[in-house]
């Protein structure tokens, strides 16, 4: 399990994350949602150590990650898979090399075993036969799926996803959501997704943290979120015309 306790972060005079605490449940898709600029990606980066905390704790199975030395932090990071907003695939490597990369670095598997694992992961994200393509040759959705294949290649315990649906059409976005949900349940991964996409919330929101202006405003799950009485969350959930119509149907 991953738990954040009273984490704070300021950039200059901007207090971006304010005393946020939350428990991310294992084998669940945990969502951090909120408006653009509310601090949710900063929370994600604080959790994996890409930003330094001002105060608070990030506990990975009880270990306070920011307080560990660099070697111990690297050991935990080897258990993390991360899907970045833009994919962050290595431009100079083919899809196969990208997915194989964590296996090259951290396993002693033979080349055949590594290729089997690569093909398994590519198959899992529906990119069979695309091994020789470079990232520049992939569409936005394919890049996300390739990045997901790389993230799961080394059997991670924790999966972090930063806006996995941004820039994708609704159909492809659902494919990505379904993939993340299935992978989470299949491999008992603790998955943390940063998103502002309400479709994702409804599809895969097992455990939700709503952030508003850097603060923890609401926690719950996808069933509870539709019946919220929290004003800020209500405005966020029912901001779009589609969700407004859902609200009208619910209250008829």
């Amino acid at each position, binding site marked *: 399990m991953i738990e954040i306790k009273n984490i704070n972060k300021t950039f200059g005079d901007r207090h971006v994350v304010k005393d946020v605490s939350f428990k991310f449940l294992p084998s669940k898709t945990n969502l951090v949602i909120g408006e653009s600029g509310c601090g949710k990606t900063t929370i994600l980066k604080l959790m*994996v*150590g*890409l930003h330094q905390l001002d105060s608070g704790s990030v506990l990975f199975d009880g270990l306070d990650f920011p307080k560990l030395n660099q070697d111990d932090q*690297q*050991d*935990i*990071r*080897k258990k*993390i898979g*991360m899907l*970045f*907003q*833009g994919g*962050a*695939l*290595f*431009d100079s490597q083919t899809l196969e090399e990208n997915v194989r*990369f*964590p296996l*090259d*670095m*951290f396993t002693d598997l033979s080349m055949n075993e590594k290729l089997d694992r690569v093909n398994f992961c590519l198959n899992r994200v529906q990119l069979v036969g695309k091994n020789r393509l470079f990232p520049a040759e992939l569409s936005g959705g394919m890049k996300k799926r390739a990045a997901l294949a790389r993230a799961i290649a*080394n059997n991670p315990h924790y999966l*972090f996803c930063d806006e996995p649906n941004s820039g994708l059409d609704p159909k492809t976005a659902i494919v990505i959501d379904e993939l993340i949900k299935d992978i989470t349940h299949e491999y008992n991964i603790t998955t943390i997704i940063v998103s502002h996409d309400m479709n994702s919330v409804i599809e895969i929101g097992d455990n939700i943290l709503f952030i508003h202006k850097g603060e923890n405003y609401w926690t719950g799950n996808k069933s509870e979120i539709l019946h919220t009485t929290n004003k800020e969350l209500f405005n966020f959930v029912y901001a779009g015309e589609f969700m407004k119509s859902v609200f009208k149907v619910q209250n008829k």
Partner: protein
Amino acid sequence: MLMMRVFKKPQKWSVYYKQIIFEIDNIGISSLPIVAIISIFMGGIITIQSAFSISNPLLPLYVLGFTARESIILEFSPTIVCLILAGKVGSNIASEIGAMRITEQIDALEIMGINSAGYLIFPKIIAAIIIFPILIAISMFLGILGGYIMGVSAGACSSYQYIYGIQTYFEPNKLYYSFTKVVVFAFIITSIASYFGYNTSGGALEVGKSSTKAVVYSSVLILLFGLILTNIFLNH
């Protein structure tokens, strides 16, 4: 701090070894054509300019070969060619690493538990330290050859005079001085460019700025360290 991370024990030697081979090709072999062209022409220009400047009939014409060799071995190949490599290789490294920074590829390496500074920068430094002396040796050979071809074909001296000149008063210690400079310059070019690339933040504009800074700073440091090493080796 960055260099401490760069020279931390590699996490997997086999992966680093492959990267070093890749970088030798990327920053070394790909620079061979420009080094070859510049060296041949500069060798020729040095010889013809020397012939033009020597108006005293008491000076023997083998001085042309001697002058070309001294200029090329002592200064042109180790310093001027390294300045050119600072432009080509330095900007390439800074923009490559800078682009990786702004597209979160370096973050991706860190998240995987990889020492990104070590993985990205260490192979470049080692590759440059290995391949630059070879490039400069080729530059020296081609520079002297260029001087021979241009000098003889322009009628500035005979073939015998030029060859006699390049063999006259040869001190092998000067090669030691030149290659020491090259190794130091190789380190300066790759480490400065990597530093600016690695610390890029922002967007494409900042990648360009990092690239420019890398070339400017490494060029200035090459000249500064050239002066320091010349004082150490040649100031008796």
